């Protein structure tokens, strides 16, 4: 039972990342009708926002500390981060320590700007072109973005730790009298994902803006006929989708050190998630993200691997293939959306 619950938990953090990326993909596909192969790159850019902020905070100047000497008796040079000298060692240290959560604030404007530029500068011109062209051009963009990041940050993963306070493990099972030791940050990540997902849904559900977007997702032409400037709203939607992917990336950095190809790695799986959830269905994308994350986690268990070796590697693809063939519109897809 403990192991069972632990596997569910283990699946949730990856599932959260899948769900957030798939949510953005679906928003873009549902509103703009564009298949965005560069969405994984947005996730990666978000992660590198966290890396950048951490680097900025750690910018240091060197001073010679007269009290300390190295083993040869020379005075020792000490690096002091600017933030520590400005805000004092305590607050400054805390800022560096909390750079990943702080990067959320840093990433939101950047991601929205990236999203706007992408949509206005490139995607806009591809609304009327075939899906194959959209796939191709966003695929090219994804390569470009990841190579730019690689140029500036190198090819190696960059460790970006969570704040010390959230870095340990917690015994979640204590409440129900079981032993479930689980890293705190992963719980944070899951809660964060739920928060974002909730916010997106609330935004779509309760604001006029969201209502128009939902109407546009259902029937773009009719909404356009009402004289509502749907295009501008869709640009904003693209920015929001980019921000969601970016934030997913920011918070994911302590779980896996970011590298330049993490976007592509997640993208393929996120596409599969979108297809399983149902093209164009937001709840479907979220549900499928979590379900597949948990399934993957179960498939990594000892008994599953001893039963079918390597099942953990292929389970998501297997499920996707079966779903596409048996129920082409996915778990929660609407009838008629890209069904053929």
């Amino acid at each position, binding site marked *: 039972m403990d192991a069972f619950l632990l596997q569910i938990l283990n699946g949730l953090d990856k599932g959260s990342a899948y769900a957030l990326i798939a949510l953005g993909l679906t928003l873009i596909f549902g509103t703009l009708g564009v*298949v965005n192969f560069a969405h994984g790159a947005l996730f990666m850019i978000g992660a590198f926002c966290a890396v950048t902020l951490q680097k900025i905070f750690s910018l240091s100047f060197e001073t010679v500390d007269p009290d300390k000497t190295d083993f040869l008796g020379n005075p020792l040079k000490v690096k002091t981060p600017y933030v520590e000298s400005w805000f004092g060692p305590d607050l400054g240290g805390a800022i560096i320590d909390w750079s990943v959560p702080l990067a959320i604030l840093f990433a939101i404007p950047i991601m929205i700007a990236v999203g706007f530029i992408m949509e206005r500068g*490139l995607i806009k*011109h591809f609304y009327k072109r*075939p*899906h*194959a*062209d959209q*796939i*191709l*051009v966003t*695929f*090219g*963009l*994804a*390569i*470009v973005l990841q*190579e*730019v990041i*690689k*140029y500036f940050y190198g090819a190696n993963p960059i460790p970006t730790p969570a704040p010390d306070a959230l870095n340990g493990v917690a015994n979640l099972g204590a409440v129900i009298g079981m032993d479930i030791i689980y890293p705190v940050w992963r719980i944070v990540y899951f809660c964060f994902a739920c928060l974002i997902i909730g916010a997106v849904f609330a935004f779509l559900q309760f604001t006029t803006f969201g209502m128009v977007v939902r109407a546009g997702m259902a029937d773009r032409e009719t909404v356009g006929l009402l004289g509502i400037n749907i295009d501008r709203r869709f640009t904003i939607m693209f920015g929001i989708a980019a921000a969601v992917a970016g934030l997913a990336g920011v918070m994911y950095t302590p779980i896996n050190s970011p590298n330049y190809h993490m976007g*592509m790695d997640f993208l*393929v799986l996120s*596409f*599969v998630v979108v*297809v399983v959830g149902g*093209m164009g269905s937001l709840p479907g994308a979220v549900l499928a993200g979590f379900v597949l994350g948990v399934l993957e986690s179960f498939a990594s268990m000892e008994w599953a691997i001893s039963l079918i*070796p*390597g099942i953990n*590697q*292929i389970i998501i*693809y*297997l499920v*996707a*293939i079966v779903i*596409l*063939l048996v129920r*082409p519109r996915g778990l929660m897809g609407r009838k008629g959306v*890209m069904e*053929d």
Partner: protein
Amino acid sequence: MFGLDKRDTTLLLIVAGLTIFAPFILNPFPTDSGLAQFNAGYPDLMQRFVIFGIFAIGFNILFGLTGYLSFGHAAFLGVGSYSAVWMFKLLSMNVLPAIILSVIIAGLFALVIGYVSLRRSGIYFSILTLAFAQMSFSLAYSVLTPITNGETGLQLTLDDPRVLGQTATADGSIPVTNLFGLEMRGTYEMAMGPWAFQFNMGYYLCALVLIAAFYLSIRIFRSPFGMMLRAVKSNQQRMNYTGLNSKPYTLAAFVISGMYAGLAGGLMASMDPLAGAERMQWTASGEVVLMTILGGAGTLIGPVLGAGFIKYFENIFSKINSNVLHSWFSFLPDGLEDFIVFIIYPFIGKGWHLTLGILFMLVVIYLPGGLVEGGQRIGGWFKGRKKSDARQSETNPAE
């Protein structure tokens, strides 16, 4: 000639000429000159040109004719490579049975994947093929280790049976791949003044296969079958209401292009008898997509051009480093030189993929017909200029 019309025959002869004389054409600079770094007439590079050319020709039969965008074609190339290496391990080092087997196995594999994937079209098809290819990659990487040797990749060893050949040579090393005794790695070097040209057995085998593959693709393009495939791309609704079942047509195209990929994989293993899972990764599938689009999807010569273009510049770009750049721009004033080198540097060396990505985006945006369309436009532009010149010279005397 060969059952082709005049234009196609010319095209075939051009491709044949280019591949046969490639060792000359690709080595235009004397060995000692500073420009020798732009030479590409080395056996392994030339082999890559033609092998990827074959791969792209096959991909084009599917994508160029039917419009079905597969993102999983590298899987067939990988399967072809594995089959060929197994043939070298079990049967003999003769490449012929190995290549035949890789084509057959890749074809069967394509039949299964195509049968399932083609039940959907559009982006669903792309994602299905992507999923299948990633699954094959994962399987080859881990589960199927007994067959694929996992991470290390499948290699020849000294205790392979090789029932029709020899397990090891007399001096105790692994025998080399050959075609009825002609060793694939055999290279004849010819020095002509300051030039050096290399004629490699393996390359010429690949070149002959490329010419045959290209010829076959022309025949397919010009056949009723090819016309039906273009009809699939143009209007499936009309096709179905004209009494035609589009499924078997697309499946046949998928299998044929899978067999081309298997052929490329088999040749790859014949040149260098090893096979690794990374050949099946989706980035490898993306590469053949890039080649085909860049050259010109749906055209005969496009994929060959695209493959050659990408492989050539990949090789050249990765050789250029900042020293080379500095030496090129040394005629400029210092500050300007540094600035220009600084600007160009991210795009060369390891930055080749960045250049490729940008180039690819530009092609998709502005030149959907690829290099072929670009060539036609330039040709048309020149013709137009000539015409207007001619008209001007006609009107001038009248004035």
